[in-house]
């Protein structure tokens, strides 16, 4: 297997471009599901799709350790390769490391000024200029609309794709007009793309990843993809 086959194996690569094949430089995206269905795995696959496309990403982990986050990348990379032999695997793994940076925050201390300060440390010294941020563990139940709007503004200023993960709860059945569940039902207009992971239907094994909303033109709302039950890899 060559690098291009690895890229082709990841269906989430479609999110990098709009329908005309133009790169999407700004987007606020959201991956939602109940606990344990694979949000982090999807964020990592989105990040890998960007990295293999030559872009730099920052993975912001809130309340998760650096090592744990690194392990996610190692595992998903291994699962993407699967049983096949990837040529130059070591140099591709090194490329992933070079294009990825992990930042961990405590849940209480994560906010826009702090994130912006850290990003500026990197960008102004020309150490690392990310094209995409994935933010895992952001607590939507405690975040106000203003805080999210603030982060959206940061996305625009810094010309970024930002992907969030959010946990929904079975007992909270509130949804927005677009079908986006709580706790994000009142802020769904701030997101350009929203994907929801649903547990397998009866007699099925696989979780499905549904694109509920997309205003960037990279995917069609309503599109649904299956996730491998063991590895949580999105199937083409």
């Amino acid at each position: 297997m060559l690098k291009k086959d690895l890229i082709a194996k990841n269906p989430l690569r479609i999110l990098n471009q709009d329908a005309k094949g133009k790169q999407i430089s700004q987007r606020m995206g959201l991956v939602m599901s109940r606990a344990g269905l694979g949000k982090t795995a999807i964020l990592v696959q989105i990040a890998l799709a960007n990295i293999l496309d030559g872009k730099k990403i920052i993975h912001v982990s809130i309340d998760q350790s650096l090592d744990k986050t690194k392990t996610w990348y190692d595992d998903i990379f291994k699962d993407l390769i699967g049983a096949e032999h990837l040529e130059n695997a070591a140099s591709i793994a090194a490329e992933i490391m070079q294009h990825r940076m992990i930042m961990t925050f405590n849940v209480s201390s994560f906010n826009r000024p702090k994130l912006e300060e850290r990003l500026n440390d990197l960008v102004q010294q020309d150490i690392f200029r990310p094209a995409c941020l994935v933010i895992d563990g952001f607590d939507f139940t405690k975040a106000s609309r203003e805080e999210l709007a603030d982060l959206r503004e940061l996305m625009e200023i810094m010309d970024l794709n930002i992907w969030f993960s959010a946990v929904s709860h079975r007992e909270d059945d509130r949804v927005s007009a677009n079908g986006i569940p709580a706790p994000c039902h009142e802020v769904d207009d701030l997101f350009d793309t929203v994907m929801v992971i649903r547990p397998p239907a009866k007699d099925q094994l696989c979780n499905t990843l549904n694109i509920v909303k997309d205003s960037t033109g990279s995917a069609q709302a309503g599109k649904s993809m299956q996730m491998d039950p063991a590895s949580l890899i999105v199937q083409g």
Partner: protein
Amino acid sequence: MKKDLNKVRNIGISAHIDSGKTTLTERILFYTQRIHAIHEVRGKDGVGAKMDSMELEKERGITIQSAATYCTWKEHDINIIDTPGHVDFTIEVERALRVLDGAVLILCSVGGVQSQSITVNRQMDRYKVPRIAFINKCDRTGANPLRVAGQLRDKLKQNAVMMQVPIGLEGDLKGVVDLVTMKAVYFEGENGDVIREDEIPANLMDECEAKREELLDAASMFSDELMEAVLEGTPTPEMIRAAVRKGTIALELTPVFIGSAYKNKGVQAMLDAVNLYLPNPKEVENTALDLDKNEEEFAVSNDPDDKLISLAFKLEEGRYGQLTYIRIYQGTMRKGDTIVNSRDGRKVKIGRLVRMHSDEMEDIEMAHAGDIVALFGIDCASGDTFTSPDISVSMSSMHVPAPVISLSISPVDNKAQVNMSKALNRFTKEDPTFRTFVDHETNETIICGMGELHLEVYIERMKREYGAQVEVGAPQVAYRETITQRAEFNYTHKKQTGGSGQFGRVAGYMEPLEEGNYEFVDNIVGGAIPREYISSCDKGFQKSLEKGALANAQVNGVRCVITDGAFHAVDSSDVAFQLAAIGAFKDGYMKAKPVIMEPIMKVAVEGPTEFQGGIMGSINQRRGMIIGTAEEGNYTVVEAEVPLSEMFGYSTVLRSLTQGKAEFTMEFATYRPVPKGVADEIIKKAKADKEKK
């Protein structure tokens, strides 16, 4: 009299630098009445702590060599190895862990789990060492033992459970509540040696009950009896202790104790915990290799009546000759006995057997399985196994990392020359990560080790202990070369002028080897190269690996396959085929697209968050790759991989960049190809050096 092995503990004390291990050891020695006064590490009395016996250690306030010591606490014999915290001396930590049955992991209640604690923890996992944690320095401003216990769970993946709750913190630290007995314990008197038990202060009752609940939950996983008793509301302290002990020895539970060694609080309770929860030598399975049965692994018996098996794990140059620290795994060692070094089969007679107390010693007549003692005047290397003369056994080998840095040293005069050789001979025996050789081209003596500080300390010791003044060259990184693609070779070595002729042809190919340094494959059919010259080809290739054509660096990761050749009935010889192989290697090497590899270090820089930008900038300037940043309260840890060649002098840069508030640790991670621009520089320099010679 035979010892009751149930009452023997062999423990190590390991931790991050500056978290107070040496101070803690000092208190242990005081409370167990091995010493009669307390001296601080950098104390004003100028005596220095007992365990820091080397002059240099006293001066720098760091512990360089682990000194073994022995004490008794409540009828238990405890052998303690004080281990260094700096990563450059990790071999010392590893060797100590190899022979220990349990360990106390010291953590600072302010700094928490720091990078070095992670390294040490990983090493303890490797050697399956059960451990208890002691959160020290609870008297310091900002002390937060609960946060540190949380880090033990999150960062070190330990099932950490609080065994105590502090009574007051920082300047108000008065004592601890023992959650097993639910009693408050106060350490009073000038040296904290008067222990008073009392009722739990009312304001702490709720917290203590909640924490005891957590303790019972965790401990009852290891004992059905305790689980039933908890359900019935009748757990006894004995049941809880037995369950915690079981979980600790199974490496599934880490009981956490708290205190302040400096303020004399909590140390005795920690000593009780060593007796109560850490295993005795019988409870740990140690294995040895039976050399008569093709190195078959077997468990040692721990029986003092069995044949002797012991391991020399540390050497020290004492005033009266070489001192060899030994752990006895089975059998009994007596003064006057003859034992065998299983590495070279040499028999030695035990002249003096001593029990060590830092730099003082006590002569003993015999020592049994489970003991750690020292032998006098025995010539051996660190890691050697000593056994009874009638068995042939070796303890499994120890993990020894390869050195990554070297520098040249030259003695200033003849006297220094003699002393330097003596010193080097000694150091290489003591420390397997310290190596030395003479570069035949430059005639310089090269020393290699695990980091700048590692080598600096040996140079300093050479001067102080051996009076050997040496001039030191700039540190050199140990580059390697490797090939990146397959290439054919075909070379004929022919010399027929004068004397007997030489003839040999070697053909085949070389290719990158994914694992390992070198492999030789003989695919010759039909006797194109006679059998007796096959090993000559192997030798020739191995010689070629010593110095690569790019940067004179050692060549790694090559498989040489010979497929064809030719010989001459009269002129072919061992030398001719060695030279033919050297020629063949030269022929194929450049076609195989060789690259230069450099050692990459895993670096963790820890400092106040306000300096984060500067720290990242400094790593970036050093061709470092930042892996991530982690927030720890007001501190940030920047993790990165940086080429070793760029790390020289980094401590000074970091100090000035952060007003001395940041610190860093590094350890060898891997070898990676150097970027083109840097490779060109290295090749240029190697060429210039060669021309100079």
